């Protein structure tokens, strides 16, 4: 039995949920970034899987979208981590629960 598209989708769903878990259940800002990266990775996996399993692959569109999203995710990570450092410099903490200036 060879893995079907379904199995790949399940895997990416699991990966996505794990990313969500990381983003939701940790207080360290870096964990939130890690979670977001994991979710993006899950999305990429979906792109590739759908591309691979579609009837005819004359155009590598799925691969290209995955490439672009990887590049953008990398930029996002860079800026995000820079933000973490800047926030840390400013508030002396990276605990997102203490960064609640918005609280009404």
């Amino acid at each position, binding site marked *: 039995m060879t893995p079907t598209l379904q199995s790949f989708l399940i895997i990416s769903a699991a990966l996505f949920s794990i990313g969500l878990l990381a*983003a939701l259940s940790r207080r360290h800002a870096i964990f*939130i970034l890690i979670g977001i990266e994991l979710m993006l990775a899950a999305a990429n996996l979906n792109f590739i899987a759908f591309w691979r399993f579609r009837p005819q692959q004359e155009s590598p569109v799925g691969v290209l979208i995955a490439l672009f999203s990887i590049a953008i995710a990398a930029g996002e990570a860079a800026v995000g981590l820079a933000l973490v450092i800047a926030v840390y410099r400013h508030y002396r903490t990276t605990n997102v*629960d203490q960064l609640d200036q918005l609280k009404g």
Partner: protein
Amino acid sequence: MSRSIIDHLWLVPAAPFVVSLVILSLANSLRKSAAALAVAGQLAALGMSAVAFLPTLRGDGFRATHNFAWFAFGEQTLRLGFMLDPLGAAMLLMICVVGLCIFVFSVGYMAKDKNFVRFFAYLSFFSGAMLGLVIANSLLLLFIFWELVGLASYLLIGFWIERPGAAEAAKKAFITTRIGDMGFFLGLLWLYDRSGTLLFYDGGRGCLEPAGLAMLGGSATLIALLIFFGAAGKSGQFPLHVWLPDAMEGPTPVSALIHAATMVAAGVFLVARVYPLFSLGALNGVTPSLTVVVWVGVTTALMAALIAIAQTDIKRVLAYSTVSQLGLMMVSLGVGGVAAGIMHLLAHGFFKALLFLGAGSVIHGCHGEQDIRKMGGLRRSMPATFATYAVGMMALSGVPLFFSGGWTKEEMLHVAANWPRSRAPYYLIAIGVILTALYMTRQVIYVFLGSRRAAAEHAHESPPVMTVPLVALAFCSVFFGVVLTPAWPWLHGYLTGESVRFDPARLIQPMFFISLSLVAAGIGLGAWMYRKAGAQDGDRAAEIDPLEYAQPALFRFLANRMWIDELYGRTIVAFAWASARMSDWLDRRFWDGLPRGLGAVGRLLSIFATGVDERGINAGVDETTVGARGLGRLLSLAQAGRIRVYLGVLALGAVALLLLYAWLA
């Protein structure tokens, strides 16, 4: 030939855009090169629009379009396009000529400003956007340029950011026009929904061509009204006119270019552009939407003219006169005289720009003084400015036979007189014409005639770089009349596509005498009313405005702009504040209290449970305690400022949507 021209028409707006980008990247010290670049870009645009003008000269309603697909979603593509027709071409030329004069003028006017470079970047940006607006062949593209123009105007009104007044005015202008644009946008969406295209002319499939119009059916009126709402916002028609006078906080060339000659005319242009939408299903030239246009125009024209009489700021007088002139244009569009309206729009572009630049030169000469009561007797110290200003004044107040304004006024009165619905607009705008002549006379008397007062002591003539554009514009506003005369209404024919022939007999018509008498009445009245106004300082009669002397209450009413701003402040703004406070209260007390309360309940539960637990009950209760703690914590987390909670709620929402979708599918 014309094919290739229309295909490359986009170059016309592109030139100033590129220039503005280049200038933006210049260092703040490269003043000369910035100015040179800007003027060069404007010259290029002028040359190209002159080339584009040529093919439109062969009467017979020339129209060429160049459409292209912007992007495709699903199977339908969104197409934009450029078009070239007499209306657009004339506007192109007018904008380029006026713009060029104003660019040159501002080289002198802004010479001492520290943000000289930025100023020219913004000016070029505006010019590009405006040129794009007049050649857009798609309501969406027009809307895009429309917003760009609005942005440019915002930037330029607030150009002197250090002045709180300027910042306020910029915000006011932006927000007020946004209100109008909202209507415009709704109309645009609705139009797209109905006709499935936003191209004006698309070889029979455009939304202004019979096929497209047929698809609109009954909704045409409402769409037209929504679009007119946007137009009203942009060209300061009655409910939304409040921003325009305040916009005079910006540098005077900006007032001349944007808030007199070109941008505020965009509303009129828009109405003219989508005129088929307005006149759809017209029975002898009257439709509900057009009627609305007429009455709004009339109200605006009269109200603004009245207010203008009581203003003392040289630029505010002109601003209100602009508003009233735009009202007149709207009227003549509404009563079916598109050509008349556009002719007045073009002529007005020239002489109003001239007047503003003259005012600028006066302000420059009086070292920034703007109160006309402190000026006076400037005709000796600033002869060139005076001469050109007088030309502009007479053109605006519509002195016939020699000045372009006269012919267009006459034309407008003519079309208004022939409106089948009622003759009231005709009489009202006749009054408007008188008032125009009146306040212009008043202004000229106050500023140039009589004896010098405080600010005029050390007045000096402006440098040639400023006076030459004045002369050029004066020239235009006189000789532009040549193509307007009823004897040889070339422009009329050009715009409407009818062939015209020379016929001196038509020069003298009843309407000619009517307008002549109206103007004479206005000027005479003004000369009589303000005969004392030119007296020395300390002269009681000079200090106080004659009208104020006669009718203090009325004068105060007008001087305070009929308290319309205050009215808005009391009603709309107050309402906005109230609702804001209300929602704030809800946030703090209600939406926040709810989870707090729940959290408290959860905590209570957990405390209770721990209490029981401590009495040594088995671990089952322990679990519930943990659960209850979790619940309490979960709920208390719902207070603001917890980024993870936002994320979680987001995720839950997504899940909910997914479930909903799966359930529906």
